[in-house]
């Protein structure tokens, strides 16, 4: 009985490996989807910080993690498997630049233009999520 169960499980694994492309998304779709989600989180964090829903310390700590998640994306994006046209990739990269600047140096006081940063994060988030199929 155990032998049969083992064979059945092995076949299941092989089937999963063989049909991996259908089970999961191409690397490009997955990566831009994750980036879109990270930009959305950064946008919400910045908004919440200025609306008084979280402290600046909390936001500052969160942005360290967003940086780790998003850094280097401009280098890897064009070469990812499943990448669409060059124009689409370039459009995403154009939106990535101001958004990553906001992630790297978020405006966490009243003396800088945090609304502009929220807007660029929002644009990047929407474009990346759309490219990721969300």
């Amino acid at each position: 009985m155990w032998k049969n169960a083992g064979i059945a499980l092995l076949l299941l694994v092989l089937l999963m490996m063989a049909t991996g492309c259908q089970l999961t998304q191409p690397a490009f779709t997955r990566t831009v989807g994750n980036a879109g989600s990270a930009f959305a989180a950064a946008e919400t964090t910045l908004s919440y910080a200025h609306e008084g829903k979280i402290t600046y310390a909390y936001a500052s700590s969160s942005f360290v993690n967003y940086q780790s998640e998003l850094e280097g994306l401009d280098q890897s994006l064009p070469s990812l498997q499943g990448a669409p046209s060059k124009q689409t990739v370039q459009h995403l990269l154009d939106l990535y630049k101001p958004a990553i600047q906001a992630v790297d140096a978020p405006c966490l006081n009243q003396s800088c233009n945090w609304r502009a940063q929220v807007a660029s994060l929002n644009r990047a988030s929407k474009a990346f999520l759309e490219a990721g199929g969300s």
Partner: protein
Amino acid sequence: MKKWFSITLGIVTATGGFLDAGTVATSGEAGAKFGLGLIWAVLLATVAVILLVEMIGRFTALSQKTYADAIRENFGFKFYLLPLISGIIAESLLLAAEIGGIAIALSLFTGISWHYLFPVAALLVWILSWRAPFSLIENGPALLGLITLSFLVGIVVLGGPPRELLPTLWKPDIKQGELADYLFLVAAILGATISPYLLYFYSSGAREEKWSRDSLLLNRVTAIVGMSFGSLGSISLLVLGAIVLRPLNISSSTLGELGLAMAKPLGPLGAYLFAGALFATCLGAALEVMLGVSYNIAQGFGWEWGENKKPVEAARFNLVLTIILLVAVAIGLFGTDPLQLALLASTVIALFLPISLTPFLFIMNDPDYLGDHTNGRFANIAIICVLIIAFIVAVIALPLEILTGGG
């Protein structure tokens, strides 16, 4: 009455063993990505872990032996090395993740990068494990773990799940190409919850508290209440992720993102309550993992052990505590995100789960240990079901980790 305070053993086991960095991560991500569609996996894991904890508590109370003792006695030293080595590999990763989780929680309070706070977190864990008596290790994280009840308050303030979210409970919203992510989260939830270290810790804790035949009812209540408490926290996080993060397209891929779900209903207090809960659960888990591994090694090799003994009275047990912490610190210093480490640890635990759980079926039916309290038919069927789940999860966990890149 004092004996019934021992129920904290269940709550601390749940605070560290059920709820930890891995469970917090997988619950939040599950809710953010698939709505309520993975609550069934948390419930399944809860039932499995209640059964296992009740059985190991019953075994220890009646036989006055720990799980590690029983494996070595029944299956020999060579077999015992299998769960031991697999446990050391998986739990070193997990300990690094838990210390990272503590560092992130401290970082959310202070705004200082968690990378700088990692050594502080490791030092805190070492001091507590080295100097604190078992009662403090039990009661401290258990009391702090009550903060997780604030997740329920958050859900209530938000008005509960909106009506359009409810169908995801029985019909998960799995988009094209997301099936592997869904299955990976199922495996990760089961792997993060049904952790062998939890059994070694609970079994050794029962010995530290000198449980006997009189403790059987206490054990049953502890297993059910403690694990249900952990499950409640996990499901609450999942629901918060589904209500708040999903509509914002936030997938909860970093631990701090889940705090936003608490900040929406409760403001900065909510975010801090989340950070406090993360601190408590990761601290409880770190202590539990360290002690679980050290108990396992000391008991397997027949050394003196016990958290209530002075370090000099159980020198090798305490030396192992320090060494396992140093290994985890070395892993953590590579700078890998604790959440990714926690998911990897869950996969590795899932991979080795059958090795740690198979002995259950044999020892729980041995009247030499349990007298007339051996497993009945229902308990045996249940443990076979848990083993089948463990085998399936073990087989699919690694391919899914590779396919999805860890969620």
